[in-house]
């Protein structure tokens, strides 16, 4: 990722009118920068404040998860998936377990499936709260960050009680989950859902109505459905252009087909649309959580019947599910042994980031921060 930058040519022109010679400048945004959400470097060619051309440089957080996975058996890989999209580790755990379970045709007991859906939706809310807090910080408002993290703290506390960790859960196993819900945990989650339903109104009051905020985001970072599909964007980036596509609804996995929730979409495809969609998605997740907690089976074991050493049959599989950032997929090629022959994760942030140079042409620096924030990338996932 160390770049030779001479390939970006800087031109300077001399304008007779003002008798001034203006020169373009190469600005390095990152890899250590307050609003790049991680170690992400953007080399930006600017003329004054308008961006002429930008070149993203990634790879600072590349840990070679796919190479490591080839040396580990399937249970050992799960802790590594926690560290890919560290803001929603449950969805990463689920995608690898789902891939292996599809290959081996393992049936998951109902209670485990419900626990999985509950923790995944809670993780989606936590991830959207982090996005909301940091996005407002980028735009300049300081206090929403604190309210977001106060509510997220409750979710982390619930996860801590359930599986013993706040961020890297390592909670799911092939065939089920490791821990059952401790006594009283389900009621605490119900309370949390009620609290957050009320709190969301305050968030809207604090920020969504704010006029500076609205005209700060309106109409920037705009693209249409065709470009979104062409750039293989997924998640809110795709739905903000009007394509109604959510894997939980269109290719249902686990017990998602038992809950009814709708997939919020917008049509403008700009930063404000993405902001509203993510806030609406929090509300939808709360709806799913309510129904899941309502239909939560009283008893039932939490682990399906799984062979002692997990050896998926020879062959390959590719499954994809809906993570807060988009469509996360897991490809496993197995040679019948207990270690995968090749494992590849289709990471939504990696694909969503490809459109950034196209969006930044002609924008200015404060818009660059707003557009980058609206894509909602996590560098652990971009560089996995």
């Amino acid at each position, binding site marked *: *990722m*160390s*770049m*030779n930058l001479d390939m970006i040519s800087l031109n300077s022109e001399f304008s007779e009118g003002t008798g001034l010679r203006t020169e373009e400048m190469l600005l390095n945004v990152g890899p250590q920068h307050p609003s790049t959400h991680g170690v992400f470097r953007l080399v930006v060619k600017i003329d004054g404040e308008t961006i002429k051309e930008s070149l993203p440089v*990634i*790879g600072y957080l*590349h840990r*070679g998860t*796919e*190479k490591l996975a*080839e*040396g580990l058996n399937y249970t050992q890989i799960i802790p590594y998936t926690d560290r890919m999209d560290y803001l929603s580790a449950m969805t990463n755990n689920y995608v690898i377990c789902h891939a292996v379970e*599809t*290959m*081996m*045709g393992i049936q998951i007991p109902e209670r485990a499936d419900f626990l999985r859906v509950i923790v995944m939706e809670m993780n989606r809310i936590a991830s959207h709260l982090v996005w909301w807090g940091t996005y407002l910080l980028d735009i300049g408002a300081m206090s929403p960050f604190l309210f977001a993290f106060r509510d997220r703290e409750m979710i982390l506390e619930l996860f801590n009680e359930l599986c013993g960790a706040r961020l890297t859960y390592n909670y799911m196993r092939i065939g089920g989950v490791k821990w059952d819900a401790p006594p009283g945990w389900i009621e605490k989650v119900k309370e949390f859902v009620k609290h957050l339903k009320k709190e969301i109104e305050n968030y809207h009051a604090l920020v969504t109505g704010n006029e500076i905020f609205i005209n700060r985001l309106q109409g920037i970072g705009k693209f249409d459905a065709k470009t979104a*599909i*062409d*750039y*293989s*964007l*997924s998640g809110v980036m795709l739905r903000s252009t009007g*394509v109604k*596509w959510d894997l939980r609804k*269109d290719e249902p996995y686990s017990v998602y087909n038992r809950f009814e929730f709708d997939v919020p979409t917008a049509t403008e495809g700009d930063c404000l649309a993405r902001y509203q969609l993510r806030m609406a998605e929090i509300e939808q997740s709360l709806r799913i959580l309510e129904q899941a907690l309502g239909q939560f089976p009283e008893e039932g074991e939490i682990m399906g019947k799984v062979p002692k050493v997990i050896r*998926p*049959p*020879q*062959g*390959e*599989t*590719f*499954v*994809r599910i809906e993570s807060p950032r988009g*469509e996360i*997929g897991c*490809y496993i*090629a*197995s*040679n*019948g*042994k207990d*270690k995968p*022959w*090749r494992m*590849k994760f*289709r990471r939504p942030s*990696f*694909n969503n*980031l*490809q459109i950034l140079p196209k969006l930044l042409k002609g924008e200015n620096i404060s818009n660059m921060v707003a557009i980058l924030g609206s894509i909602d990338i996590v560098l652990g996932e971009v*560089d996995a």
Partner: protein
Amino acid sequence: MSEEKRKPTPEEKAKAAAEAREKLEAARKAKEEQAAQASAPEAVASSPEQNAVKAEAEPASADQLAQAKAEAAAKAKAAAAAAAAAKAKAAREAAEGGATDTKAAETEAGGADADAKAKAAAAAKAKAAAAAAAAAKAKAAREAAEAGATETEAGGADADAKAKAAAAAKAKAAAAAAAAAKAKAAREAADGGAAETEAGGDDADAKAKAAAAAKAKAAAAAAAAAKAKAAREAGEGGAAGAEAGGDDADAKAKAIAAAKAKAAAAAAAKAKAAGGDAADTEAAPKAPSKNQPHLDHIVKLITEKFGSEVIEASYINELAKEVPTLVIKNENWHDVAKFLKENDELSFDYLSNLHGVDYEDRMEVYYHFYSYKNRQNLAVKVKTDREQPTVASVMNIWSGANWNERETYDLLGIYFPGHSELRRIMLPEEWVGHPLRKDYVPFDEEV
């Protein structure tokens, strides 16, 4: 055996710290040895899985015991520990070798032939050991490990005896090879399963040739032994893809053997898989999956336009929620890709996933498409050889392929002619080698 519980006294902690520091030196010294003989491609003896498992059983801090030895604890414990240490050292090298050179550890075929490589490693280690200043005893211990790799702990005693004999003959590399060969033959018998014919490949030659030799042996082994496990290993060696139908008409003689073996393996695997999900025996075909009509429709459209030889294989991949899968010929992949997107009946406008897989004898690029118009998935695989892997770039059709192709090039070394700026995306510019290739040896062994 546990001492009475007491607060860790300061010198207790100091000793632990000292131990730890020596542990670090020992690890570094062992690593130099490993680096010295890392030059030989499959230098490391990665014993077949069960050996690795048993060997890994005592990763027991070899350095810990090395220090023990260093402290010249002559006690009986040290002697027993010596055997364990030797095994551990071999195992650790195997693990390191495994980590850095997954091919040796991974390939099932390689596994069956691990002992040949083990012997090669022994020879190389012998040379390295001679070079290294390690005490002769350490070498003897390693020889013991060589011989005693598969015996259980109890067997350690006679391993020492063999080791001493081997040590005596160790002067010459050849002698070591002979001893190791003898030991290997004995071990073969113990293995039972993979009856391993005494093939060539005794010295560490180029990896590809060794891999080929290894596969040939595996094929032979598979043919000989009908046991499911062995068969599965051989099958995997052939091709990971579950092309029950297509056999890759590999010209070379080896390929024919491999094909035969794979068919046997596939049958066995399917039987096992079938057994797994309680379907009836493989003989009765499962009900045709719901995507079969889609697959036929796609195949019909493509063959109409491009003729039938364009599609090398087409099947329903039950392991992946019955996604229709095509294997397209490398040469005319770009036109088929354009056709897949532009044709309004197919209109696969969404490229979900694109990455490469290294199957030892060939490279494969896996594409996963989705069509929003008629809500239909499609997986496409394009094969290319290993020496100069090239697949036509589809960047001008789906711009989403841009970074994915750069990542595949970066990690696997597959070239995508037609890509506007095929540069490394994850690794720094001056990185040498492509890490996800099976024969990747890290250029600079970091500490």
